[in-house]
């Protein structure tokens, strides 16, 4: 029986660009180039490895985002995913994490799934709560923050490295998994992969397709409200000295002056 894997990915503003907020206090996507969130590449990689170990598997990559978000899907397809779903709707602008999890959950249910794989967090919002939210909404086990993952005979196993302990986890499919950047280096798309991706199907769904009302999502429907966003004032230039043999002692003097010693 075919193993249906859905990988959730996010199109995010490039962290090396000048990221800032738009007038409505949502993330400004116009002034900064977007790309597939680096942490989601690890999710795609693990999906490819799990699919490679299965008799028969199909990987669908799913994103919620504006028109440009197709770029993130293309990247995942060029890495080797089989098909893509793009949820796009003007009413989605400003949707928060809880709303996004609603849209993703409906899309995952509509697509059909045995295994959902997500990155540990997005590189823009960085909250890291969407995988747990998806598990809650889908009513399936969460097997999250894995640095090692495998699937065999309808059971997902993985290792979760926490602050106080390292845990081995196990759950029956269907399940939601999230993987960390320790799970294994993500592959680069090959030229062949990039060419093949152009021919792979990308399906577009809107809110109506998912039977979600406009007021359940978007800025107006958000469960949280951002009242202000202010740029952190630039740090006042610090003292910089060149080590000419006494650099460590000079630094100790500074630390003593600041009462750290």
């Amino acid at each position, binding site marked *: 029986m075919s193993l249906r894997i859905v990988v959730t990915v996010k199109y995010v503003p490039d962290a090396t660009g000048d990221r800032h907020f738009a007038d409505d*206090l949502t993330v400004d996507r116009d002034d900064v180039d977007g790309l597939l969130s680096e942490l989601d590449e690890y999710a795609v990689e693990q999906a490819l490895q799990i699919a490679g170990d299965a008799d028969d598997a199909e990987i669908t990559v799913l994103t919620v985002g504006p028109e440009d978000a197709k770029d993130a899907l293309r990247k995942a397809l060029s890495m080797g995913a089989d098909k893509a779903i793009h949820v796009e709707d003007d009413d989605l602008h400003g949707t928060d994490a809880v709303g996004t999890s609603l849209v993703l959950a409906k899309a995952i249910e509509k697509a059909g799934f045995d295994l959902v794989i997500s990155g540990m967090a997005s590189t823009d919002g960085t909250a890291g*709560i969407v995988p747990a939210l998806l598990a809650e909404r889908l009513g399936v086990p969460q097997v999250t923050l894995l640095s090692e993952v495998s699937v065999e005979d309808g059971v997902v196993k993985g290792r979760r490295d926490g602050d106080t302990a390292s845990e081995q986890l196990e759950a029956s499919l269907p399940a939601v998994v999230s993987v960390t950047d320790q799970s294994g280096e993500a592959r680069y798309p090959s030229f062949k992969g990039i060419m093949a991706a152009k021919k792979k199907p990308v399906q577009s769904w809107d809110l109506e397709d998912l039977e979600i009302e406009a007021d359940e999502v978007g800025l107006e429907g958000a469960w949280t409200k951002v009242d202000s966003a202010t740029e952190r004032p630039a740090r006042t230039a*610090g003292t910089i000295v060149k080590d000419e043999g006494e650099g*460590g002692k000079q630094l100790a003097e500074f630390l003593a002056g600041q009462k750290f010693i």
Partner: protein
Amino acid sequence: MAEVLVYVDHVDGAVRKPTLELLTLARRIGEPVAVALGPGAENTAAALAEHGAVKVLTHDAAEYADYLVVPKVDALQAAYDAVSPAAVLVPSSAEGKEIAARLAVRIGSGIITDATDLEAGDEGPVATQSAFAASFTTKSRVSKGTPVITVKPNSAAVEAAPAAGAVEALTVTFSDKATGTKVTARTPRASTGRPELTEAAIVVSGGRGVNGAENFSIIENLADSLGAAVGASRAAVDAGWYPHTNQVGQTGKSVSPQLYIASGISGAIQHRAGMQTSKTIVAINKDAEAPIFDLVDYGVVGDLFDVVPQLTEEINTRKG
């Protein structure tokens, strides 16, 4: 006065510092009612009472250790139903955020994660957060349901404020999903004797410039002279020189200590995302052009193999 639910992070009854900080913040918006789960839950009461908990709801069951996250969500929901609080506060650990998120969906509420400050507002608690590698500060609130907010360590000073701290047994009925994810083995992390990275007042980090696992002892010696935690950049972790649990940055831990000392770290945006909110920043790097120097209060352009041992020796001498 409105009650505020505070989820307790503890190890066998020893309350971790971020929870005591949460109690300080909780008192700004109401009367803290603490929820302590698992082995030793009742032993948390004295510390929680000393820091302002009017009530401590406790419950222990094997499920908390044997299954991932969901049993704790069931218990927090039971506490929520029993108390009908004005807000729910949870420490911003990886697990804390997952518990809070699932509770939020269950009770139809919004969630704010990684708050760095919390104040009472006209329309409920107002949370401060950092965005885009801490280059922006936002103020947000939950606009639907009962605010569920997770708070980062070092967001408030721990203040004693003795309260009743009456222990009450919480009644918990686990949902059928509680046993979905089994913990089949657990290997406790060996203690280094150093402070926990995210809670430490001082963090000393090493990066690519440390140039080998064997050289990290230089960083550790400096950390020990200051009673600090040890951090590492992603480059150092990816090279296998230091464990991932010590990684500071976007894909590792985010720290906000009183003092951050970066040695042999250039200061890429991903690293800055994890340490930019540190109160005082010091860097040691051979490259005078390294972006980390844009952030520092004090920087030394020099070889860390000369500067760091000299600094450590000087600190140890001064401590006498």
